[in-house]
């Protein structure tokens, strides 16, 4: 195969990943089956590691494949699989089409930025916080950009299209009201999008080579990769065409050196070289770069990686199991209290079903917002400070927006990090993510002496039941044991400004009792009309 085709192959693979992942994040009707979500997010590096840690399952081993791929081919991940990397290539491509005479030039690596930005998230993670991973993970940043910024645009187009079709009496697209989260949660995705655009336009792949921890980590590994880009001394005329198209600015013509730790494997250089003097070759055979101390570097790289991986799977696992013990045995699960005050007192925010509890969820979720995009009721919304500052943008159940559909488990199916673990419908229906609290003094029936029952009407388990109150009226009565915490009662309650019924989240999810059922007597079909 001619190496000139490498770029084409890269572009095709990249487009498949990019378009699929983009569609996952903007599709609000969830048209695609869940196995597609799994297969396309399977290879996403940080989500895959997190999922592996929380599930210890082979189904979350995508990051191992990425490591193997990188040790053989270099950082091809960054140009063909990572959606944020591909987004930069698209920005770059548009930039090239609109601006003439744009040339890249070799720059030195920004080591003082890239190594700390790799080390800090790892240290934070080992200490039990995903906060920095959440901020820096390229997949999650891409997810937030698409889900928070592009999905509303897509919804707008969908709505305009559906109204147009309705005028033609075609009922095919349907409008969907756009729900916005609190505006502060948009600051970071917009900032990252602006940063990525600016860096791409002016500095090429600087984001991947200085900010992104995955880029830096794979860069370390690519130092030992089997195949790499090398310049053939005897054929190269030093025309410099390769360096001009190098987005990673890692080709130094002066000494025919390619800094392969920053090379994202786009193969643009190969496709422009008129002499075929820059090639993708086996590392050992080509000793083009004379001063490379191959064996020492290799040893160092292996050591670093080994330490990181050991840390992640050993230390972190231990910490995590301690958490569970601590929370499971000595620490008494919080009791929901019935506040006498009118303002609902929520001790905990409500994390989605399947997330086990707030610790597991906030310790694993990188806020990619795939669940936010896919949630059919939009009850999952990016949080601001509900989980504390380090949980910023992690989704929570916002019962002002809607309530959790009793039959739905979509968020648990799409979550790529294992923050929301897969849940069967049956298991979901007895997963108690919070418990109902009723404030009698705020209830319409109590204050206005009129019928209401909105809460009980919406309750899927009848944990809220209407019981006789006065001769003509009934009033809610709660049975928190069978409550699943879906928030239907809270959403439906008409009182303002504070709800008379609400769900207080659980720090650790519990199992709800199943509602008792008793057979009804079937009516006699032969009986005469009762009127």
């Amino acid at each position, binding site marked *: 195969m001619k190496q000139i085709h490498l770029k084409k192959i890269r572009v095709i693979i990249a487009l498949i990943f990019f378009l699929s992942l983009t569609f996952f994040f903007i599709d609000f009707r969830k048209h695609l089956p869940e196995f597609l979500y799994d297969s396309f997010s399977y290879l996403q590096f940080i989500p895959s590691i997190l999922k592996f840690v929380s599930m210890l399952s082979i189904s979350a081993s995508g990051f191992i494949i990425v490591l193997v791929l990188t040790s053989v081919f270099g950082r091809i991940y960054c140009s063909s699989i990572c959606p944020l990397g591909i987004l930069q290539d698209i920005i770059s491509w548009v930039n090239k089409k609109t601006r003439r005479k744009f040339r890249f030039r070799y720059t030195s690596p920004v080591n003082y930025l890239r190594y700390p930005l790799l080390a800090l998230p790892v240290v934070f993670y080992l200490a039990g916080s995903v906060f920095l991973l959440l901020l820096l993970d390229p997949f999650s940043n891409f997810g937030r950009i698409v889900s928070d910024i592009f999905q509303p645009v897509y919804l707008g187009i969908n709505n305009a299209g559906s109204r147009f079709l309705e005028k033609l*009496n075609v009922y095919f697209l349907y409008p969907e009201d756009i729900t916005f989260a609190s505006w502060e949660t948009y600051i970071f995705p917009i900032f990252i999008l602006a940063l990525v655009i600016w860096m791409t336009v002016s500095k090429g792949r600087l984001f991947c080579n200085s900010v992104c921890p995955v880029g830096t980590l794979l860069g370390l590994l690519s130092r030992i990769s089997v195949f790499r880009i090398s310049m053939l001394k005897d054929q190269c005329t030093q025309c410099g065409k390769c360096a001009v198209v190098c987005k990673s600015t890692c080709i130094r013509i002066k000494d025919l050196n390619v800094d392969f730790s920053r090379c994202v494997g786009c193969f643009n250089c190969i496709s422009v070289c008129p002499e075929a003097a820059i090639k993708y070759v086996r590392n050992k055979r080509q000793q083009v770069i004379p001063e490379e101390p191959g064996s020492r570097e290799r040893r160092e790289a292996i050591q670093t990686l080994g330490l990181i991986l050991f840390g992640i799977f050993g230390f972190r696992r231990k910490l995590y199991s301690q958490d569970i013990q601590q929370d499971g045995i000595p620490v008494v699960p919080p009791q929901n209290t019935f506040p006498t005050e009118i303002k609902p007192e929520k001790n905990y925010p409500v994390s989605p079903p399947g997330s086990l509890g707030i610790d597991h969820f906030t310790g694993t979720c990188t806020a990619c917002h795939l669940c936010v995009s896919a949630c*059919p009721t939009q009850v999952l919304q990016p949080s601001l400070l509900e989980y504390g500052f380090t949980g910023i943008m992690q989704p929570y159940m916002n019962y002002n927006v809607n309530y959790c559909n009793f039959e739905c488990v979509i968020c648990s199916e799409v979550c790529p990090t294992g923050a929301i673990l897969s849940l069967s419908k049956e298991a979901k229906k007895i997963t108690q993510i919070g418990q109902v609290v009723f404030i009698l003094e705020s209830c319409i029936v109590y204050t206005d002496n009129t*019928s209401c029952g909105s809460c009980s*009407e919406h309750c899927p388990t*009848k944990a809220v039941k209407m019981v006789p109150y006065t001769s003509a009226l009934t009033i809610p009565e709660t049975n928190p044991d069978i409550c699943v915490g879906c928030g239907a009662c809270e959403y439906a309650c008409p009182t303002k400004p504070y709800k008379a019924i609400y769900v207080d989240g659980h720090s650790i999810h519990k199992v709800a009792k199943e509602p008792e*059922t008793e057979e009804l007597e079937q009516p006699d*079909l032969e009986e005469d009309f009762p009127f």
Partner: protein
Amino acid sequence: MRAVIFRNFVTIYLLRMERREFIKKGLGAGILTGSALALKPYPKSFARHHSNQVPDLVAVKGGEPGVLFDKGILALGGMKKYVKPNQNVVIKPNIGWDTSPERGANTNPELIARIVEHCFSAGAKTVYVVDHSTDEWTRTYKNSGIEKAARGAGAKVATGNSESHYHPVHVKNGKSLKNVLVHELILESDVFINVPVLKDHSSTMVTAALKNLMGVVWDRRWWHDNNLHQCIADFPTEIKPDLNIVDAYRVMKRNGPRGVSVSDVVTMKYQLLSEDIVAVDAAAIKLLGREPGQVGHIRIADQMGVGTVDLTSLDISRIEV
């Protein structure tokens, strides 16, 4: 905040407009609407001619939902009495909850399909099926089986869960409910067929024809907040269905309106049909073993002249299949 203020202004402005004026102004651009208004011969006037021959209320029992409807509509004088050639029909089932048909929380899909077929046989141009679902609507439409059944019969399935489809209507004789946002298909269509499912209801004791109309308005929570039974009775003083068909094939006898499991449901194989929305509800509640007088909205609707609660004064046709 600014957006909210602006929105309020728009709402106030729109609320001041009369319903028809709004249709002319807001939707007048639609040729469809224009022709719909021009063509509108009110089916009510036809009904009066026949009032001596046809019963006020038809109760059918003992068959499958489709068969019950065939017999019932025949007894009422046939669908042609309600649907004239080239008219647009809107069918409003109860598609409230994301549950399967066996749970009896939504109108029977087979019945909806049969009604759609009858409308087309009578010459309807377009038949729409719409409800403002309580649970997430795409799942609810799908899992209730109604979307598939209605589409299969040729109807257009519309959503009731986007605020953009709702337009202000002034309820002239309303006591609690003065202004309300109503789905445009209800406002624009020539014939409005109300097809509730009979259920126990935690808020209003029973849900049938009157209560089902809460699914054609946008802000139901406001009703709960402002004398629910009065609001339910107020609404039909302004907008009344041309025909009410109460599906009592599977009846949820407790834990309504959503139900907890199939054990809440009994099979009764009944269907009630009437132009009188109060009479049909009065008969429906008797099927649940309760009295119409116990239910606030039925009683108030009768007092407000929406219909007749006293079944003894009505000509009832009772049919066993």
